[in-house]
């Protein structure tokens, strides 16, 4: 089948699943039907996303659909792969998690229907945002991700869940309105430059004319875009919605929010970053992103350390890691861009795993308070082992994936001569390492509460987590060649120049070259 058609099928299939689930009456249709439709939806998204991304990475050909409206280049492919893989694994984890919620009375059948219908809608809006070539469509899709997830955040309908949902919707819609303003400025600017103004909404059409755009308008527009989409990405100081929404949402939703949604917002920032450096050069975006990035890392690192709520702690970790991505973009150059893209992928996988683990902890202990969660490895050995491993991975220890992207980030900073920034970055990461080590020593190890039965969560919950753990271990030891090629190609798109595969095709050779000053 034609790849363009497959791309349309990929985009439309979760929407169809949502519409079918929405049409089914919750009173007469049981949970298994919703589970079946949900699994069908995530399997189709996974298979098509992986197939299309593999094709894109191996052939290097952009997949276009609906004229120019959808464009799957190497940059979009990285994020579509993330949506497909994490969406599938977290979707699988959802089934035992929601069953447990129903058993303990946290959810009724109506809420189950809401959960599964909006889960697929969430995947649909993220896939649209990642593959959109139309900059206004990108904004609409990012806004739609907020609207599709607000009921997921507030699905428990408790006072706290509704408070989190309100803060989420008001902060993100107001924040993303900045993104709209910035997008419209880019569009209006392009419309005055392009001979055919109907093409001015298409990113790929604006790109060749980036140097002809009005520099003042571009600088204002990029600032608005960073504030707007940075709110959605969870960058400081617009991150305030993040700990509330992540902590009150069901754990699989937190995993998707943190693992994928924040990165999709980063992708949109990257798209505008490319246009901006094409017009006004690297300096202005670099200063802005480096400043926001390092502030996010430092502020979040201390919040991570002081936080006792497991999910809030993980939420601040997300802010810190999105800060690292922004920092890498600020450093620029092939290493900086490659580090930003790799860190998006690696952190997405690691954080999805950790939020799923937080779900295990909630199922087992019934609390997120780390002062009450002790001896996980004795009470639930598999969960405890994966939890320890995931926290070491999040701390950036080898041989896990995030070690590679963080060390590349340091090298990118070194290459960019940002010595003060990398020293502050190193201190902040040390605080994060301490925070992660403390969770392992105090919660994973130690004695479990009295009378706690030694029994793990169901295998159906553990299997997706084991797969995620294997992925972060695998990518930490040897990143598969198609992914490396994809990252090379995506880096070339961002920098608008061919990146020699010898430089970043092998990360280690890239790092070695940077150290040698090549």
């Amino acid at each position: 089948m034609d790849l363009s058609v497959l791309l349309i099928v990929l985009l439309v299939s979760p929407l169809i699943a949502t519409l079918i689930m929405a049409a089914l009456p919750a009173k007469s249709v049981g949970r298994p039907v919703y589970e079946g439709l949900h699994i069908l939806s995530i399997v189709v998204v996974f298979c098509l996303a992986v197939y299309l991304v593999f094709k894109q990475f191996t052939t290097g050909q952009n997949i276009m659909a609906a004229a120019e409206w959808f464009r799957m280049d190497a940059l979009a492919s990285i994020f579509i792969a993330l949506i497909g893989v994490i969406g599938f694994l977290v979707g699988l984890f959802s089934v035992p998690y929601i069953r447990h919620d129903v058993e303990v009375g946290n959810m009724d059948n109506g809420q189950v229907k809401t959960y599964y219908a909006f889960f697929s809608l969430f995947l649909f809006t993220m896939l649209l945002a990642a593959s959109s070539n139309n900059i206004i469509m990108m904004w609409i899709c990012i806004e739609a991700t907020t609207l599709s997830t607000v009921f997921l955040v507030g699905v428990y309908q408790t006072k706290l869940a509704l408070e989190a949902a309100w803060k989420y919707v008001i902060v993100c819609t107001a924040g993303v309105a900045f993104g709209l303003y910035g997008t419209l400025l880019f569009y209006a600017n392009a419309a005055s430059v392009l001979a055919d103004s109907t093409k001015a909404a298409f990113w790929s059409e604006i790109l060749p004319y980036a140097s002809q755009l009005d520099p003042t308008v571009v600088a204002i527009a990029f600032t608005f875009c960073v504030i707007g989409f940075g709110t959605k990405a969870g960058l400081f100081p617009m991150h305030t919605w993040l700990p509330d929404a992540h902590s009150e949402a069901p754990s699989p939703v937190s995993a998707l929010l943190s693992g994928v949604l924040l990165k999709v917002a980063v992708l949109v920032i990257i798209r505008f970053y490319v246009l901006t450096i094409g017009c006004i050069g690297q300096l202005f975006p670099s200063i802005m992103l480096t400043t926001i990035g390092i502030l996010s890392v430092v502020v979040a690192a201390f919040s991570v350390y002081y936080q006792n709520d497991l999910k809030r702690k993980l939420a601040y970790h997300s802010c810190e890691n999105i800060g690292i991505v922004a920092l890498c973009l600020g450093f620029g150059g092939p290493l900086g861009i490659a580090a930003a893209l790799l860190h998006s992928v690696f952190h997405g996988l690691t954080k999805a795993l950790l939020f799923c683990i937080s779900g295990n902890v909630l199922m087992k202990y019934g609390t997120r308070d780390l002062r009450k969660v002790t001896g996980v490895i004795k009470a639930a050995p598999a969960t405890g082992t994966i939890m320890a491993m995931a926290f070491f991975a999040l701390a950036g220890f080898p041989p896990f994936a995030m070690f590679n992207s963080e060390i590349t980030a340091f090298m990118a900073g070194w290459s960019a001569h940002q010595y003060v920034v990398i020293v502050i970055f190193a201190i902040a990461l040390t605080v994060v390492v301490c925070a992660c080590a403390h969770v392992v020593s105090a919660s994973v190890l130690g004695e479990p509460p009295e009378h706690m039965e030694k029994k793990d969560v169901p295998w159906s919950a553990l299997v997706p987590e084991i797969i995620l753990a294997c992925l972060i271990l695998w990518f930490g030891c040897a990143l598969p060649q198609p992914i490396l090629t994809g990252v090379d190609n995506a880096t070339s798109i961002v920098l608008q120049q061919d990146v020699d595969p010898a430089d970043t095709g092998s990360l280690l050779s890239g790092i070695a070259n940077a150290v040698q000053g090549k």
Partner: protein
Amino acid sequence: METGYMIVNLLGCVLIITSTLVVLSRKLKQAAYTYAIQSLVIVAMFLTLAVTCGSTDLYLWSGSAFITKVVLVPAIMLYAIKKIGPKADEEIPSKLGPIGCVILVVIELVVCYLAVMNVTLPTAAEAHPALAIALAHFFIGLTCIVSQRNILKQVFGYCLMENGSHVTLALLAPSAPGLVETGIATDAIFAVIIMVIVAYKIYKKNDSLDAGELMNLKG
């Protein structure tokens, strides 16, 4: 052409007055009606621009703006106010007094005017005042969200921000395809509906629309 842009700039001034009144309205119903009037001013701006620039798309915009901004948004808000009942009319003091709000609006207007003066796009040449007002309008919306404690009033803040963006688009790209405008307007309507649903659920749970009571999640 000059007369057309003069009318647009004058309508821009009316826009600032109406948006300030939305922020200062003590009752939600007042805010909804003032918002409808303001949207009518935006429709008039679009029509004037359509005639001035000869853009057929702008006629379509003014039609869709009338439906979404003058009719739908106020109707949704009034429906929510009616559903909530007398509690909706209960005055919740804002974090910033009326004088403070007006001073902030003036500051925003001056800063935005200074920022916009450097824009050299051909479409902006004759509409610098209106452009500054559109940008200021956006920030007045943000001021409304930050300063108001009534959560339904905060929804109006978002609507003002969206209106500011819309007017900017019309001023800078009058020939933008209707599809672009329709997409933005539709998305904004969905946003309003969803925010109103969440606000209503919060009201049912807390028996109040006060954002000050949504402070349990901290740290």
